[in-house]
């Protein structure tokens, strides 16, 4: 695809770009896998692939506007498949996209360890924002299983390491 999305990083050498196909296809594939895989393997619902993709693109592009728009779109599409009102994931992922892109400007996010910690923290932040919206706007008051929440955060952080390495291959460098 010739028309690449020219989102450049602030690194002095590398300029990260993604083709239109990757920019659209990877989030759609992540959402598809998220709703399809738990049909046979229910435990995979603990992973949040759309969130990981949001974090990856936001950090790699390092532009807050792009990050928040990516998060908003992915979250809204994800909301469409749930029984909850549309906007819960949208708002949460919008904020995560914005924060992740802002963080990518300041920190080295290429290291596997930093990627694990970053994803771990963003997963907890995402769930926290989701819970706040759920309680404040929707009016739900359900107890949280904090142990399970930490376990999910660790699992998503662990998955982020190989997944981000895989997605690094789609970066267009110049």
């Amino acid at each position: 695809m010739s028309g690449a999305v020219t989102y450049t990083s602030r690194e002095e050498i590398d300029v990260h770009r993604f083709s239109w196909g990757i920019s659209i296809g990877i989030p759609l594939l992540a959402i598809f896998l998220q709703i399809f895989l738990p049909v046979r393997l229910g435990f995979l619902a603990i992973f949040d692939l759309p969130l990981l993709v949001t974090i990856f693109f936001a950090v790699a592009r390092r532009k807050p506007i792009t990050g928040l728009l990516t998060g908003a779109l992915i979250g809204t599409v994800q909301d469409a498949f749930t029984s909850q009102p549309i906007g819960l994931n949208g708002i949460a992922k919008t904020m995560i996209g914005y924060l992740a892109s802002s963080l990518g400007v300041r920190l080295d996010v290429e290291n596997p360890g930093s990627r694990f910690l970053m994803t771990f923290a963003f997963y907890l932040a995402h769930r926290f924002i989701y819970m706040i919206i759920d309680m404040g706007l929707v009016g739900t008051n359900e107890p949280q299983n904090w142990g399970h929440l930490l376990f999910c955060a660790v699992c998503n952080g662990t998955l982020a390491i190989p997944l981000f390495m895989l997605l690094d291959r789609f970066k267009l460098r110049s």
Partner: protein
Amino acid sequence: MESFFSRYKNPILLIAVLFVQVIILASQVRRPEDPKNPGSGGTRLIRVWVVNIFTPVERAFVGTGRFFRNGWHNYVDLHDVRKQNQQLQAEVDRLRMQQAKLKEDAEQAHRLQALLDFKERFIGTTIAAQIIGTAGSEQSRVIYIDKGARNGLKQDMAVITPDGIVGKIREVYFMSSQVLLINDRDSGAGVILEKSRLQGDLHGGSQGETVVKNIMSDEKVDIGDQVLTSGGDRIYPKGLPVGVVTTVNTDPDKPLFLSIGVKPSTNLSRLEEVLVVTKMTEELPNANQISGPIRAADILAQRLPSVPKVPEKATDKSADKNQPSQKPAGKPQDKIGATPDSAQPTKPAANVTNDQTKKPAGANSGKEKSTKPLSSQTPKTKTPKEPVNESGQAPETAPPAIAKPDKPATEPPANAEKPPE
């Protein structure tokens, strides 16, 4: 001013995007849902578009996987079929014996239900559907099936499996439907405990658990008690398995009520195929449709060869069990050995009522059962005491007791009109 926007354009845009989403979210929460068309509104368009885009891909994946899986199971992986077939045959034999024992109880229960004008909802028609997707989230427990509006599905139709209930249809799209599972926090179903007959509401929890609420805390609930659908929600047919009681605690929100943990009968995380109840018939269980207007005198006459009024009939009835079609249909006596499908109602309902009042043994034993709602599948009733002992001889008190009601009720059978030569 221009520098302000250019300097803070990122947070301004963030606030703008969040504001729009909050408005959309608030509009969904505040707007009262149209009961005739739930899910309507602007956000439904988003769901329809997104689901209709993803559904064909999911169907293709599921169909491809099913093709290869069926090819393996149906042609390659058959090494245990013979052994399994023998086991199933033994199971069928055992169930046939059990069915014979239960059949009479069920027929009697239905006759008593007819007496009490007890309306019951039966499963009319179902459509098999395959699971093609989930919500992909632990906060929302819904699944998607590959049948939609073009298959005649509508909202609030019950979704079941042979093991028990699964949920109800929440959204219907053209080629797919969204099913709200019973362990979702927004779900609800009317249930009844099988032993204690206590009725409550089944709800889902935030962690995917299912809990029965609205049962007073002074009631006694045993762990392991079966939970069935009560039919009171007008969604699920009555008497379907829901699950088993696992925990009994006081509801933290309502101390006067219990919070009963239930393990669903259906494994909700491993669903592959489900049945959608597309039509339920609410009708009076008609004893005529089940076994015909059997009169107590006829039953006893069948079982008592020594009854002096119809000696030929008794012998014929024993033969009728093997050859029910040898007798002409329409006579009340013939209905005893007839199958439910072949039986045609020839007597008015009043006749049935009259017969039931004349029934000496069955009416007494079934009266206490009639106070409880009975499942249409396996009514838990005791076997009525038969006036015939093991050797086939009548008890001493039986002949005089049945002699009188038998006399006006029993017409001479067709083959009895002509005296035996």
